[in-house]
């Protein structure tokens, strides 16, 4: 079976006005379908950079990153966009919901980007909100929801178009312990299944227990993968 993600000798160098920062210094990493992979490591070691490259929103300087056996970086930019719209779900530390849209409208965005009609997309959005336990709050705006609830809306948004890969950057670090646990439960129980992989960047040792595997990073390298 094809791997969800296969990175080989990935290098990313940021060039900020003459000063070069090597953020990824030859990353080798494989993520299998059906697994929840956590990326951990000290601040500045390149975790966010790595999932940005994996999600296709940042181009590497060298090396290969294949998603489901396809070299996304080599695609034409239009195909790349379409690939991303279809296959990737995002969950952010800061939720990144659109404040002027209600929960259902926020959740429906990935479907709309994929060309689904608005009414149908919003109907589906309410169903997915039910799955994350917010079926009765679909009309609420982000400002009317708690942090944990907002992150659940964001998870619904990451799920609605049935992507094969979900990337999460620090999904629990803006939440208290209980909400963080709820969010992880949701990701593990609802979001994860055999045709899908999850990559979660985190500092939060309290949630390590949810991982199938943990990749330890330092200074642009993956230093250890457990188990």
């Amino acid at each position: 079976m094809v791997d969800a993600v296969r990175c080989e000798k990935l290098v990313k160098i940021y060039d900020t006005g003459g000063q070069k920062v090597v953020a990824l210094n030859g990353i080798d990493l494989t993520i299998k379908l059906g697994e929840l992979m956590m990326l951990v490591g000290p601040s500045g070691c390149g975790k966010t950079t790595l999932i940005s490259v994996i999600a296709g929103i940042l181009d590497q300087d060298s090396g290969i990153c294949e998603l489901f056996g396809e070299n996304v970086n080599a695609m034409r930019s239009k195909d790349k966009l379409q690939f991303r719209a279809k296959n990737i779900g995002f969950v952010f530390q800061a939720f990144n919901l659109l404040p002027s849209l209600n929960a259902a409208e926020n959740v429906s965005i990935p479907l709309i980007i994929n060309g689904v009609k608005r009414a149908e997309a919003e109907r589906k959005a309410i169903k997915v909100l039910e799955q994350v336990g917010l079926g009765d709050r679909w009309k609420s705006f982000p400002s009317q929801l708690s942090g944990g609830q907002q992150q659940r809306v964001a998870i619904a948004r990451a799920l609605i178009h049935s992507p094969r890969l979900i990337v999460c950057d620090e999904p629990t670090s803006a939440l208290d312990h209980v909400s963080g646990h709820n969010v992880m439960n949701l990701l593990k129980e609802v979001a994860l299944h055999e045709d899908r992989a999850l990559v979660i960047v985190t500092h939060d040792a309290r949630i390590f227990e949810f991982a199938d595997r943990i990749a330890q990073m330092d200074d642009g390298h993956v230093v250890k993968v457990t188990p």
Partner: protein
Amino acid sequence: MNHIALKMLMGDTGKYLGIVMGLTFASLIMTQQPAIFMGILARTYSFISDTGLPDIWVMDEKVQFVDDIKPLQDTELYRVRGISGVAWAMPMYKGLLKARLADGAFQTCNVIGLDDTTLIGGPPIMLQGNISDLRRSDGVIIDIDGLNEKLSKLDADGKKIPLKIGDSLELNDHRAIIVGIAKVTRTFQSQPVIYTTYSRAKSYAPKERKLLSFVLVKAIKGQDLDELTRRIREKTGLAAYTQQEFMDITYNYFIKNTGIPINFGISVLLGFIVGAAIAGQTFYSFTLENIRQFGVLKAMGTSNWTLLRMILLQAVLVGSIGYGMGVGLTALFGYAMRHTILAFKFPWQLLVFSGAGVSIICMLAAFISILKVMRLEPAIVFKS
């Protein structure tokens, strides 16, 4: 994605109102100022257009516009009458004279003297009395706005009491009795207009050798007007213009020789610049504030082309609302001012003009926002 664009825009009420108000302001200035400008310019020739009957106006060669009177000798009238193709030719006196009111105050008035027998060249609309009442001794007809404003008396409470039929005033020590009230289109100088007969006007005017201002000519039926004006010019050495030509000459004189166009041009330009600055700046800062939202959409696979359309839609929406409000306010303004001295003219071309102005502002505003969003790296979404 259109509904998302609109909700994004209207979700930020403060910014949204700021942009719309900037555009409303620009649209208002760019419509209202030219409307006043055109109103004023139309007034420059309103005396000519009010005098509908004659085909051709004959005057001294050096006359540059309708209020630039260079008197002729009375004998010119007979020379014009002798030219073939002329059905009739009538004298007209036009001059500024001081009227002395009952309370002793003086007011400069535009006195028009009409041919004693035919009374050709009279006011376009009579409100009270009849133009033939001018045949009564010392009779004059005065325009209603003059009566209500500059010629009115103040009563004890300071309220204006307009002059009415039967009241008298003095023109150069000669008595004049109001026998009629007319409605005329306001002129550039906005002086009260007093109609009387040619011979009476001559008696009011200071004694001079020449007092004939214009000869008004009607061509015989089927006569080519251009040819007739040429013939009059050749035979008399005077200037002869068709009504339209004389209006154009007057209009062009004001365009070329007064600061009016420049002043209004500057107003319009300032309105454009200030409106563009406010609207463009607020629109851009709106985009910047929402840059993260655009980044999220981009990360999730929205194309630059779709984002461009979203921003254009936002610009078109605020542009249309601002334009509509500006034009609406201008129309309201014109309506509110319709009975006042203020000049105002609102032809459809003006809608096109200010519409184009607002569109340019919106396109500029959208353009810088679009550039910003196009260049946006979607990877910013992971930055906290």
